[in-house]
C-alpha cells in the first residue's frame, strides 16, 4: 500500500475519532455542577421571558441545592418544537401546554400522570379543592390528572370610558344583557368625521370572543358534557350563533372581518376606534397609553344566564422523566411561584389576592373574581384542535363573513364535526 494511502487512512481515522469523541461530549450535560438539570420549555415574548426568569426560575434555582432549572424559551412555533423534542426522545422535563392540547398529549402518553403524586401531597398547589372546577376539568383525561393550570383567564369586557362619555352612554353593569349590550353598541357606533364610513365601532369580533360564550349564555352546549355528542343543530345553539353574527351584519355595531384583519383586532381598540372589547382578564388593554379603560363583566344571556369563556394553560411533567417524584417536587416549586406571578391564578385563595400580585389590576380585581365564578371551558377531547379548526372553517367563519343563518350551515358542518367526536 502506498505511503500516501496509509497517511490518508490515518488522517481520516484520527478525524473520525475526534468527531465521535467531541460529539459524545456535546449537548447539555445531564448534571450541572453535580446537580440534576430540569429543562423547562416555555413560550412568551421578551418581557414575559424576563419576568419568568426574575420571579420564578431565578428564585427557585437560588433556593435549590440538588437541582437546577434551565429555561428552553420557544418564542414561536411552540408546538412544532415541543413535539419534535418529544418525538425525538429529548422532551423537556417541564413544559407549558395550552388547555386545548392537554387531552391530545395525555391520550398519546406524553404527560406524566400526576393523580397519585398530587393526592399524596394535597397542600398548596396540590390542594385540588382550591381550583376552579371548570378549569381543572381540562387537565383530566380518562379520570386521571395530567397537569395543573397555572393561569385561568376569564373573558371580561374592556370599555373605552371616554367614548362612553362622549356618546352619553352609561358604563355597563351587572344588569346588562344582550339587548342592552346591542343598544349601547349601536349608540357608540358613529361616523365621527362625516365621510360616510363608520370609523368608531361599538364592539369588535373576529371569531374572538369565542362564540361558545353566546351558546352557553343561551343555555346550550356545543358538545354535551355528559354524552359527548355534538349539539350544533340544536335551535338554542343556532340562535346564539345568529345573535353573535348579527353584531356585524344586522346591528352593524362591529366592523366587517376584512377591516379587522388588516387594522388589527386589539389594535383597533388601542387606537380608540372601538368602544367595547372582550379580552382576557390578564390582558394589558386597560393600561393602553392615552386611553381611559375600565373593566366590566360580560353581559348576561337571556334570562340573566351568566357565562364567560376561560382560557387556561397548564404546567406539565414529561412522561419520560426518570424520577417522577423528584421531578414533581421541582414542578410544584415552579408552579407555586407562577401562581404568585401570573394573574388570575386558578386557585380561589390566590385569586383573592390578585391585587397583591399585580397591583395594576386592582381596579378590575372585583370584576375578574366575579367572572371567575362562572367561567367555563370547552369539553376537552383528543381531536379538539382539529375540531376547533373545522368548526371555524366550516361554520363560524362563513357565518361571520356573510351573515348567513346558522341553521343553514349547521347540518353540513355537523356531519364533518361528528366524526371527530367518535
Amino acid at each position: 500500500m502506498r505511503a500516501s494511502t496509509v497517511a490518508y487512512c490515518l488522517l481520516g481515522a484520527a478525524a473520525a475519532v475526534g468527531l465521535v469523541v467531541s460529539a459524545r461530549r456535546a449537548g447539555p450535560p445531564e448534571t450541572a455542577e453535580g446537580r440534576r438539570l430540569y429543562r423547562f420549555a416555555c413560550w412568551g415574548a421578551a418581557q414575559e421571558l424576563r419576568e419568568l426568569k426574575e420571579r420564578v426560575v431565578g428564585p427557585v434555582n437560588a433556593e435549590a441545592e440538588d437541582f437546577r432549572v434551565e429555561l428552553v424559551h420557544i418564542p414561536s412555533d411552540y408546538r412544532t418544537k415541543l413535539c419534535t423534542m418529544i418525538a425525538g426522545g429529548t422532551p423537556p422535563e417541564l413544559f407549558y401546554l395550552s388547555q386545548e392540547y392537554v387531552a391530545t398529549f395525555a391520550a398519546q402518553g406524553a404527560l406524566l400522570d400526576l393523580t397519585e403524586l398530587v393526592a399524596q401531597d394535597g397542600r398548596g398547589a396540590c390542594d385540588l379543592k382550591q381550583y376552579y372546577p371548570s378549569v381543572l376539568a381540562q387537565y383530566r383525561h380518562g379520570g386521571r390528572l395530567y397537569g395543573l393550570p397555572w393561569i385561568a383567564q376569564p373573558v371580561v369586557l374592556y370599555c373605552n370610558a371616554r367614548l362612553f362619555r362622549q356618546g352619553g352612554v352609561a358604563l355597563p353593569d351587572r344588569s346588562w344583557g344582550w339587548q342592552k349590550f346591542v343598544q349601547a353598541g349601536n349608540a357608540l357606533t358613529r361616523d365621527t368625521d362625516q365621510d360616510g364610513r363608520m370609523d368608531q365601532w361599538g364592539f369588535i369580533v373576529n371569531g374572538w370572543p369565542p362564540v361558545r360564550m353566546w351558546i352557553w349564555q343561551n343555555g346550550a352546549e356545543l358538545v354535551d358534557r355528559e354524552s359527548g355528542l355534538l349539539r350544533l343543530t340544536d335551535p338554542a345553539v343556532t340562535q346564539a350563533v345568529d345573535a353573535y353574527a348579527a353584531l356585524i351584519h344586522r346591528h352593524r355595531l362591529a366592523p366587517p372581518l376584512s377591516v379587522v384583519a388588516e387594522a388589527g383586532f386589539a389594535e383597533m381598540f388601542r387606537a380608540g376606534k372601538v368602544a367595547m372589547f372582550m379580552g382576557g382578564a390578564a390582558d394589558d388593554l386597560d393600561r393602553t397609553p392615552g386611553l381611559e379603560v375600565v373593566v366590566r363583566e360580560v353581559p348576561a344571556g337571556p334570562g340573566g344566564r351568566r357565562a364567560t369563556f376561560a382560557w387556561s394553560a397548564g404546567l406539565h411533567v414529561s412522561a419520560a422523566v426518570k424520577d417522577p417524584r423528584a421531578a414533581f417536587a421541582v414542578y410544584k416549586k415552579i408552579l407555586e411561584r407562577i401562581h404568585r406571578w401570573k394573574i388570575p391564578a386558578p386557585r380561589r385563595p390566590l385569586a383573592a389576592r390578585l391585587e397583591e400580585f399585580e397591583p395594576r389590576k386592582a381596579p378590575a380585581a372585583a370584576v375578574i373574581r366575579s367572572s371567575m365564578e362562572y367561567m367555563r371551558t370547552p369539553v376537552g377531547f383528543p381531536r379538539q384542535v382539529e375540531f376547533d379548526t373545522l368548526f371555524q372553517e366550516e361554520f363560524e367563519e362563513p357565518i361571520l363573513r356573510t351573515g348567513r343563518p346558522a341553521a343553514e350551515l349547521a347540518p353540513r358542518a355537523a356531519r364533518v364535526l361528528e366524526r371527530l367526536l367518535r
Partner: protein
Amino acid sequence: MMGGAYLQTLLRFTCLAAVVASAMLLLHRLLRRLRCRDETAAGYAFVLPWLVGLVTFSLLPMLWSLYLSFTRYGVLSQPQWVRGQNYAAILSGDPIFLTAAVNTAAFAALSVVLGITASLMAALLLSLNARGMGLWRVVYYVPSVIPAVSTALLWRWIFVPEGGLANGLLAAAGLPRPGWFHDPRWVIPAFVIMSLQGACGNNMVIFLARLRGIDAQLYEAGVMDGAGVWARFRHITLPQLSPVVFYHLVTGLVGGLLLFTQPMFIRAPGRSGLFYVPYLYRTGWEELRMGYACALSWVLFAALAVLTALVVLTSRRWVSYEASDVQALEPSRALAPRGIRRGLWHAAVLAGALVMLVPLLWMVSTSLKQPNDLFAIPPKLLSWPLKPQNYVDAWRAAPFWRFLFNTLFVAVLATAGQTLSAALTAYGFARFRFPARRALFGVLLGTLLLPGIVLIVPVFLLWRAFGLVGTFDPLVLGSLLGGGALQVFILRQFFRTLPRELEEAARLDGASHARVFFRMILPLSWPAVLVVVLITFQGHWNDFLGPLLYLNREAHYTMTIGLRYFEGKFMGEAPKWHWMMAVTTLMAIPTVLIFLIAQRSFFQGAARTRPRGPTA
C-alpha cells in the same frame, strides 16, 4: 462556557471535512485498485459527499416518511399500521385536500406563467445598452433578497382594502377596488401578484444573461428578410430563450406547488387561502396527524414528478437545445431607442423600479413609525416625527448582539461548507462519466420535490443519535454532505462551459484531479461560486425552522428566532410590528450589501450558469 460551543462546532466541522476528504481520496484509490477507469473512480469520489448526505439526510428520512404514510402517527406516540387508509381518505375526496390542491394548482399555474412573462419583460427592458443600466438592474434585483416573511407582511398591508396602497392607486385611476386577501375571489390573484416581486430576481438575471448572448447577426438577417419587431421576437428571441423558459417552467412549478411561508402569515376568508403545504403542516404539526401528513406529502411528490416528467417529455417539441449551445459570434447589441420611444422606455423602467421598491420602502417606513400610527386608517406611508429610536429599542429588547454573532457563525460556516460540497459534487457530475451518473443527477433534482416538513422528525432523530441536538452542529455539519440541489445545478452548468483542454493539459503535466479542481477550476469559476455563495448565505441567514428545532438555549439563538420575540401571540401582549420591521430591515442589510459589492461578478456568474437543456 459559551466560547466552548463555538469551538466544539468548529472542531467537529474541521474533523468532518478531513473525514470527507480522506474518504474521497480513499474511495478513488480503492476503485482504481479494483481496476475501474480513472474517470469512474474520480466521478464517484467527487460525488461521494453528496451521496453520503443523500442517503443520510434524504433517502432514509424519505423512506421513513413513506412508512409513516401507511400508519396512524400522532408524533408523540408510536406509529400504528393502518395500511392504505390515509391514501384512501385523501383520494376518496377529502374536501380540504381538494380545496388546497385546487388553490395550489391555480396559484402555481398563474404564478409560473406571469412570473416568466414578468421576468422576461424586465430582462428585455434592462437588456438595452443605456447609461445607468447597472443601477436599474440592482434596483430590480434587490427586492428579491427580502425574506419571505417580510414579503408576506408587506403585501398584506399594501392590499388593505380600505385605504391600502393598491386600492388607493386604483381609486385614483377610477378603477374598481377589489377586496384582495379578504375577498375569496381575489385571494389567489393577490398571492400571484405578491409572488411577482421575486420574479425580477434570479429569473430575470438568467433571462438577461441569455438575451445578451444572442447573436446579433440573427437579428440582422431577420431585418434583411423584412421581419418586424414582433416577428423577430417570435422567431428569433423566443427560440433562443426556450431552454431558459424550460428551466423557469420546471423550477417555477416546483416552487409554486411547494408554496409555504407566505400563506402562513396571511389569513384569508374560509379556505380560499389554504394551500397544499400549509395544509400538510397544519395536519402534521397542529392536528398531530403526521401519518396523514406524510401521505399528503407523497401524493404531492407523485403529482410533481408526473408534472415535471410531462414538461420534460413535451419540451423536445418547443425547446431549441441546438440553439442554446451555439456561442454568440458577437454579443447582441440592441440599440437604445430614440425619440418618443426612448421616453416610453424610461417611463417603463421607472414604473417597474417603483413597483419593485415600494415593498422595501414600506418596510423601512414601518420601522420608523410611532406605535399609534401602525394601524392608522387609512394606512400612512410616513409617520411624523420619525422614530429611529425603534431600531435601538428593538435591538435592546433581546440579546441581538449575541443573536447576530450566532447567525454569522452559522451562516458563514454553513455557506463555506455547502459551497465547497456543491462545487465538488457539481464537478463530478459535469466532468466525469461514470455508471448511473444520469440517474443520480435525476435523484439529486428529485430531492427538491418532497416538502421538507415531513422529514423534520426523522432528521431530528438522526442528529439526536449523533448526540448533537442543542448545538450548532445540525445547522452546519450537514452542509459538508450535499451542497444543495440548486447550488449543484448552478455550478454544474458553469463547469460545463469551461474548456476541457485546460484540464487535459494539466492532467498531462501530472496534476491530480484534486489539484486540477482546486488550483484551476475553482479560480476560473469565481463568478458562479459567488452566485452560489450569495444564494446559500441568504438561505442560512434567513433560516428559522432549523435554529428553532435544534437550538435550546437562548444564548445560541439566531436573529430569526429573536425576531419572533416581538410577535406577542400570548397573554394579550400586542405584536410590535415597528420593532419587527426594524430588525427585518437590519437583517436585510448584509445580503443587500454583499449583492451590491459583488453584483458585477454576480451577473457574470449568472450569465455563465444559464440552463442549456436537460442533457446531463
